Every structure is written in C-alpha cells, then in structure tokens.
C-alpha cells in the first residue's frame, strides 16, 4: 500500500521530483558523456599500442649505427629496439602535401596499423604505405602509383596499404592551423630500397617495461657515449600528446561539472523531502499509532528520492553514453585517429551512479530522521508552528524603517535557510556557467584580435620547402620585403644535468625582430625581445619554473649540442608555446639560420618561386582560426543549455517551496483583505532577492571557471579570458527573466488560492 502512496505523492509533487530527476540526470549524463568516449578512446588506444607494438621510448640524434641499437638492447629494462630514418618530404602532386616518411628495416616496433591492404614488409622495396585519412581525402586506390620528392628527386612507388600510425593520433600539417586531412600523410617505406642508402638513421625506437622511460636516460647516455639529442617518451610525442591532453581535459570535466549538479540536487532533495515530511507529520503519526515500525516508515520516505534519483541516473547513463557520448566521440573521431573509437563504460559508471543515488537517499534520511524521533502521540497533534525568531537582520539600524514585505521575507529566509542557500547557490552556479559560456565568445574574439592585430602584422604567410637555405629565402625576402622566421623543435631545460626534471620539448621561433611577427608581454602589450636574450612564453615558464633573468639551456631537436641562453622576457601568445629569439643572437651560436616562413605585406602566389611550398593570405588564416574555434563554440553551446537549465530548475523549486510552505499565511493575508497583487509581490520579492544575490555571487566565478577550462586545453593554448559587460548583462537578464517567469507561475496560483480550502485543514 505504501508503494501506492509513494507513486501518488510523486505524481502530486511532480514538479519537484522531476527537478530532482533532471538534476540527477544532468549530473550523471554529463559525467557519462565525457567518460564514455574517453574510456573507449583509452581502451582502443591501448589495443592499438598492443597490436602495433608501439615504442615506449624514442631517441633522436644525428646518426645512429647498428651497434648503438645493439647496445640499447642490452639495457636491462629495454625489451627490444630498432633504428629508423625519418625524413620530412612533400608529395609531387596532391598539393605537395607534407609527408612524414618513415624508412624502416623491418616491421617490429611501432608497426603501422593497416586499415586496408597489406602489412608493411621491408622486402617489398617498390611499395609504399600511406595514411588512410590522406588516401581517403585524395581518393587514392591500392595499387596506384604515388610519387614524392626526395631532395629534389621524384621517387615513385606502388601503394600497398592504408595505415594509421600509432605515433600520430593527432596529425596536422605544419602549414595548417587546423587539421586538413589532405595536407599531410605519414608514409612508410622500406630501408632496403636504394634511394635511402645515403640517409642517416636519426631515430632509435625501443619498447621497455620501465615505468618511467626518463629514468633510463643515464644508461642510454652511457651506452651512446652521449651521442644523441633527445630521449622522449609518449608524453613528449606531439602526435600522441595532443590527444592525451584532450582526453585528460575530458576526464577533468567529467568530475568537476557533475559535482555542481549533484550539490544542487542534494539541496533540492533536502528541502523538498523536509517539507513533505513536515506536511505529513500527522500521517506519519497515524501510521506509527497503527503500529507500523519506524524503520518501515523511514524506508518508505527514503524510497521516494531513491526511486526518483535512480530513474534519473539510469536515463542519464543511457542517454549520456549513447547520445551525448557518441556525439562527442563522433566529433573527435574526425580529429584524432584511433581505430574503432566509440563509447564504452567501465566500473566507474557503477560507482558514480551509486554515489549519486546514495547521496540523494542519504540526504532524505537526514532530513526525515528528526520527525521520526517524535513520539507518535505527539506527532498526531498539530506541529507547533516553526518559531519565528529575531534575525541578524534586525540588528541593522534601519530595520524598523523597512516595509512589512521586506521584514516578513527576511524573517522567512532566516526560517528556511537551506531553501535560501539552494536558491542562491543554484542561481549562482547557473550564472557562473552562463557567464563562462558567453565570455568564451569574447575570449575567442580577444584571441583573434590579439593574434591578428598585435602578433601577426602581415598580409601573406609564405611557407618554404623544408630544404630551403638561408640564401634562397633571403633572395625572396629582398624581392618582397618582410620578415623571415625559422621554427624548430627544441628541448629546453632549466639545468645542465641530463636527467633534469625541468626539461621540456618545445618550439623555437627565430625572428628578425622587424615586427611582422611580433611579441606581446603577459598583458598583451607589444614588446621587443631585449637583445642577447630569449623570450619564454608564460605557461612554459611557469611549468619549468623559469623567471626573467634566469639562465636556461637548450638544443635543437635533431642536434646533440646544448647552448646556454638568458631569459629577457616572459611573453604570451594564445596559440604558441615556446621560446623566441632574434636571428642575430641565434647566429651568434654559430647555427645556420634556416627560415621556414616569410611574412610579408605583398601579395604573391605559389608559382612565384620553387622554394614556396604554400601561401596563405590573412583571410585564409582568419578562416582557419574560425574553423578551429567552431568546435569549441559547439561544445560551449551545449554548456549554455546546461547552464540555462540550472536557474530554471532551482528557482522553480525555490518558488514552489516558498509558496507551499507559506500557502496558509498567504490565505490568511487574503482573508485579512490583502489584494492578490500585494501577496504576489510578497512572494516574488524573495525569489528576486535570491536571483540577485545569486547573480552577484556567481558572476565573478564565470571567468575563473572559463580560464580553468582554457588552461586545461593543453600546453600550447594560452587564452586570456576576457569578459565583456554584455556577457554579464545577458546572463543576468536571463536569470532575472527566469525568476520573473517563476514568479508569474506562482502568481496564478495565488489568484486561484482557495482561502476556505487552504485554511480548513489547518493544523
């Protein structure tokens, strides 16, 4: 019978129980959507690493001999090792797409994962294996001939397979700002073919059962006599790291955002159940007088929120995983190459669901425990009305001058503190999320003007072929005027020790200091690098604990020599992380300046010169910036929807509670002759206050949470959150509108309030 009672009462209070269900649903589905795609990504990634025997360590150097490989193999925790040649080349046709060519002696470590065609085979010297994404974009068929340029000489081979490289989940051409599949391919060819006889082996890859590859560095350095440049693990490999950063960010979101919803769900449950149990005091007394066991009654009330939150949770898991999660996986499948990536669940889903349902149930237990302890005879008598008492507000000097409505509401709030906390917290959370979502648009706008108005002062970006010499570039620069810039991979360290903890793989930009490619300080002011020093970007400096004036050490990725430099500037760039130095300082080290880009204000085309690989005008660059941002904005749109639901649910509940708790008082006021309008004002006032306080309390946190989101977006992104007044105004107006709408809903109830009925059952 109690089950029937429960079903009927849930229906009767559908608004509030629906809110609890929605909140449980939101919390769990938000968690599930982030987590389900992540779990699948991790599982499929592990499958991929296992199937392809992906390397655990990479050693880069100028040249490795066979005996180096043998020596590496002798290191205790190294399982197996191979050397390989890596060349950056370009396709002859296909828009001269960027090719990362791996020339391998066999197919043992970091095997290309074959999607279609034959396994890689070093015996087949006339064959070539291409990235599946690239082949797909160009409609290349198995058996087609494919030609690429090797130091100016065309090399043609027959396409034997379409593959995914386990070392490149993230595959983006150097000249592109975002992923364009037809502009880049990983290429595998046999080292046995004669074209590559002259090329040095620049990489050793090895598998290992050591947990921390970096701990092997001393041993590796010993066996190689220090003749190597960099030792990397998976975290250092850009093709792997970008993806790993992204997944880590999702993992973080999967926990932090649901927590907000769960806290609000708990507040809603606690207030709702408390009211319900207080209202049913006599019923509870009756049941107990009839001889029903206390525990049975407690279980009865607990089961309300148990059932409701369980339903919300189950739907949340299902929809979160299969709808939202699948949608997220679909977006990211387009970006990252992991074969078989969909959605999966793991035991954390059970834990989270259990925690959500149990905390909801526990909140009910806590709020009904008190009533249960009252003696049945006592609970059959009407409850003494909750005492009004003097509130802290009365200490205010102007208390006596406040109108009745204000005093009445202030006292009412102090009688229902939990309700007030829920109202303020919920609105504040909603406001925070709204501001964050809207401010992200102004932040992106700021990043755009920062990039295009301050940092990049050119109309055309000319990318050079990788083999372009300083002289060739110089020739073009004299013709068109502009600034030559070199971009190279380096390793940066705070100390000279090989095994330094403060060591990072990053990028070096060498500029001529003319200003086509400018630098800004941490406050976005355009500044120049002091001569004889280098600039380090803010996030990198923080990570390595570097300050202005420090001495740091660096070396080019493919070279073994370390250099010393002094930090003269901490700079900031939204989409670049690394080191910047002037050409003259760079050349002082005795290193060849090998420009990769020319920035100019002239218009020119690719046909202009042989060394030009590609030309982008500022319109292209802005467009690809916009494309990159469009994914972010799509995710933020979802965020806005979630943010919008919060104040609606919370303010509705607050309105509902404060109406129901005071319905008899309102009826009394109506009998005394208060006009409906006055009573409405009385009710709306409190909701309005809570929304106003919530707006004020939530607003400052919007940018905080947004900065946290942007900061968790990987090392290379460094957006400075900027909120314009409009973000705040729009969010505040929205929350106020919701508040007004809720007031309007209850206004109708006040008009229809039946004085006789309401006061008849007075207890």
């Amino acid at each position: 019978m109690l089950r029937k009672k429960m079903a009927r009462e849930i229906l009767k209070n559908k608004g509030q129980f629906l809110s609890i269900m929605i909140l449980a649903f939101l919390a769990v589905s938000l968690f599930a959507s982030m987590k389900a795609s992540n779990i699948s990504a991790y599982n499929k990634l592990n499958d991929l690493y296992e199937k392809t025997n992906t390397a655990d360590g990479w050693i880069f150097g100028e040249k490795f001999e066979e005996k180096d490989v043998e020596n590496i193999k002798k290191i205790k925790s190294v399982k197996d090792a191979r050397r390989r040649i890596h060349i950056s080349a370009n396709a002859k046709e296909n828009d001269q797409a960027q090719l990362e060519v791996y020339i391998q002696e066999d197919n043992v470590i970091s095997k290309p994962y074959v999607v279609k065609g034959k396994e890689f085979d070093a015996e087949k010297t006339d064959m070539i294996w291409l990235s599946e994404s690239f082949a797909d974009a160009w409609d290349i068929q198995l058996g087609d001939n494919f030609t690429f340029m090797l130091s100016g000489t065309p090399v043609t081979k027959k396409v034997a397979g379409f593959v995914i490289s386990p070392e490149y989940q993230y595959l983006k051409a150097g000249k592109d700002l975002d992923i364009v599949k037809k502009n880049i391919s990983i290429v595998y060819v046999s080292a046995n073919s004669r074209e590559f006889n002259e090329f040095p082996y620049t990489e050793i890859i090895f598998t290992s059962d050591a947990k921390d590859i970096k701990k092997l560095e001393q041993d590796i350095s010993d066996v190689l006599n220090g003749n190597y440049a960099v030792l990397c693990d998976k975290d250092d490999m850009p093709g792997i790291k970008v993806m790993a950063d992204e997944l880590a960010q999702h993992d973080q979101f999967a926990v932090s955002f649901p927590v907000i919803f769960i806290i609000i769900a708990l507040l809603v449950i606690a207030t709702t159940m408390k009211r319900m149990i207080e209202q049913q005091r006599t019923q509870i007394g009756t049941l107990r007088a009839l001889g029903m066991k206390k525990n049975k009654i407690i279980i009865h009330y607990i089961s309300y929120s148990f059932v409701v939150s369980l339903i919300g949770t189950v739907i949340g898991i299902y929809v979160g995983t299969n709808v939202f999660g699948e949608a997220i996986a679909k977006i990211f499948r387009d970006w990252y190459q992991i074969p078989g990536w969909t959605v999966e669940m793991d035991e954390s889903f059970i834990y989270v669901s259990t925690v959500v349902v149990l905390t909801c149930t526990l909140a009910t237990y806590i709020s009904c425990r008190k009533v249960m302890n009252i003696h049945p005879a006592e609970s059959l008598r009407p409850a003494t009305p909750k005492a009004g008492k003097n509130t802290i507000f009365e200490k205010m000097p102007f208390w006596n001058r406040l109108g009745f409505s204000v005093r009445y509401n202030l006292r009412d709030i102090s009688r229902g503190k939990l309700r007030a906390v829920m109202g303020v917290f919920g609105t504040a959370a909603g406001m925070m999320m709204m501001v964050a979502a809207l401010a992200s648009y102004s932040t992106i706008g700021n990043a755009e003007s920062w990039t295009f108005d301050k940092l990049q002062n050119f109309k055309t970006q000319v990318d050079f072929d990788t083999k372009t010499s300083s002289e060739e570039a110089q020739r073009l620069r004299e013709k068109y005027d502009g600034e030559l810039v070199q971009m190279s991979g380096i390793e940066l360290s705070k100390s000279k020790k090989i095994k330094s903890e403060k060591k990072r793989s990053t990028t070096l930009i060498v500029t001529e200091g003319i200003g086509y490619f400018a630098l800004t300080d941490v406050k976005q002011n355009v500044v120049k690098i002091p001569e004889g020093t280098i600039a380090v970007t803010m996030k990198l400096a923080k990570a390595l604990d570097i300050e202005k004036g420090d001495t740091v050490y660096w070396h080019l990725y493919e070279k073994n020599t370390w250099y010393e430099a002094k930090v003269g500037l901490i700079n900031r760039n939204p989409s670049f992380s690394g080191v910047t130095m002037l050409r003259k300082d760079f050349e002082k080290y005795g290193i060849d300046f090998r420009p990769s880009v020319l920035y100019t204000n002239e218009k020119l085309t690719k046909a202009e010169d042989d060394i030009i690989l590609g030309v982008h005008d500022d319109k292209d660059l802005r467009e690809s910036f916009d494309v990159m941002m469009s994914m972010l904005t799509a995710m933020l749109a979802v965020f806005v929807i979630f943010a919008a639901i919060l104040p609606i649910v919370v303010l509705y509940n607050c309105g509902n509670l404060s109406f129901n708790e005071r319905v008899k008082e309102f009826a009394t006021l109506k009998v005394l002759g208060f006009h409906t309008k006055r009573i409405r004002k009385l009710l709306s006032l409190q909701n309005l206050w809570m929304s106003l306080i919530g707006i004020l309390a939530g607003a400052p946190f919007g940018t905080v949470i947004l900065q946290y989101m942007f900061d968790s977006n990987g090392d290379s992104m460094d957006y400075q959150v900027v909120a314009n007044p409009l973000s705040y105004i729009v969010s505040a107006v929205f929350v106020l509108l919701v508040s007004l709408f809720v007031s309007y809903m209850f206004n109708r109830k006040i008009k229809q309030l039946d004085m006789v009925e309401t006061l008849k059952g007075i207890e």
Partner: protein
Amino acid sequence: MDNIMVEFKDVVKQYGEGEAALLANNHVDFTIDEGEFVVILGQSGAGKSTVLNILGGMDIPTSGSVKVAGKVISDMNDRQLSDYRAQTVGFIFQFYNLLPSLTAYENVALTKDIVKNAKDAKEMLKAVGLEQHMNKFPAQLSGGEQQRISIARALAKDPKIILGDEPTGALDSDTGVIVLELLQDLCRKHNKTVILVTHNADIAQCADKVIRMKNGKVREIIKNENPVPVSEVEW
C-alpha cells in the same frame, strides 16, 4: 429596519455537480442588526461555516443575495471582495492564523498595509491586555494569547463586523472565557457586530440572537432578550 447590518436572502451554496452535489446552504434567510452579538449554532456539516465564509467574502453563494452594510457582496468580483474583506470584516480563526515570522506587534501592525486608517497596533494590544508581549513571536505565546492577538489584529482594521469561526474551539475553558468576554465587550462597548460560529450551545446564552442551523437550513432564529454576560455563565 434602518440598522440591518447583514441580510441573507434565499442563499444557496452548492458544492459539486450532479449526484455528488452537496447543498451546504439550502435557501438560507436571516438578518442581523448592527451591534448585535450573534451565535450561529449547529453540528458539523450544518452549513454554519459556509455562511461565515460567504459573510467573510471568502466564498460566493451559488444563488441568492447577501447584503452587508448596505452593499450586495454576493455579486462582487475578486477585487471588490478584497476591498470588502479589508474594510468591512475582521476574521478570527479557530487556530489564530498569525504569521509565525512576525512578532505580536507586527502581526497587528500588518493592518496598516491593508487599510489606510488602521488603528494603532500598540493600542490594540493594550485593549486585549497583551502590550507586555508585543515583541514576542506567536510560537512564544499560549493559545489564548495568540487568539487575543488575532482579535487585536481584527480590531485594528476597525471593521464593521467581526466574524469568528469557533474562536474558542482550540482553547481550554478558562482562556476561552477570556476570549469570549473580549468579544462580547467589543460588541457592547464599541458597537461592533459580532458573529460567531460554534457547536457549543453554552455560548448561545450570551448572544443577542441565535441562529440554529441543521442540514444546510436555518432551523430557528431565537432572539435573546436577556443575554447573560460571559463571566456569569456556568461553563
């Protein structure tokens, strides 16, 4: 007949429709003069509360007409009824219905927000003998004290008639007497029309007029030529 304060003419109040229909008032007729102390007597379900609710402007009759202080209230709209409730009647409930979050004084002073020329709340509390408790909250007062505050609240609006729905129903007899004395005083000394609904026949001896109801009809109307002062009644 100049001083007729209340006139019920052929009043019918029907709840529900068809077979489930209930006639709470079945052609009720009576008049009450200004300054009269009237008791409407009857068992539960006799229809006496319905009469009081209609009089209080909280309910409207299905048919018939009700005239109070010269105005027909039976066809007033919501707004007019609000004004009527504010200006003409003071209502006293069985369970006092004070606002728990307001002090005794504030509960009475509340009337300033309802009518323009409300009486001074402190004076009203003095009149019911509770000025020393004016800063206490309802929960800190006894039932009898709460009921006296609700009388003070009704009085502060300076209404023409005071309606009481079992005003002593929740009180023990000693405090009940105090409340009733107060009400009878209002009638005698301030010339208020006081109408009480009760099932307690003892109270009837104190009234000028007793309207006895049963099954939604007025059974008899007794004019009491010599009403007994409350203090002399044997309870």
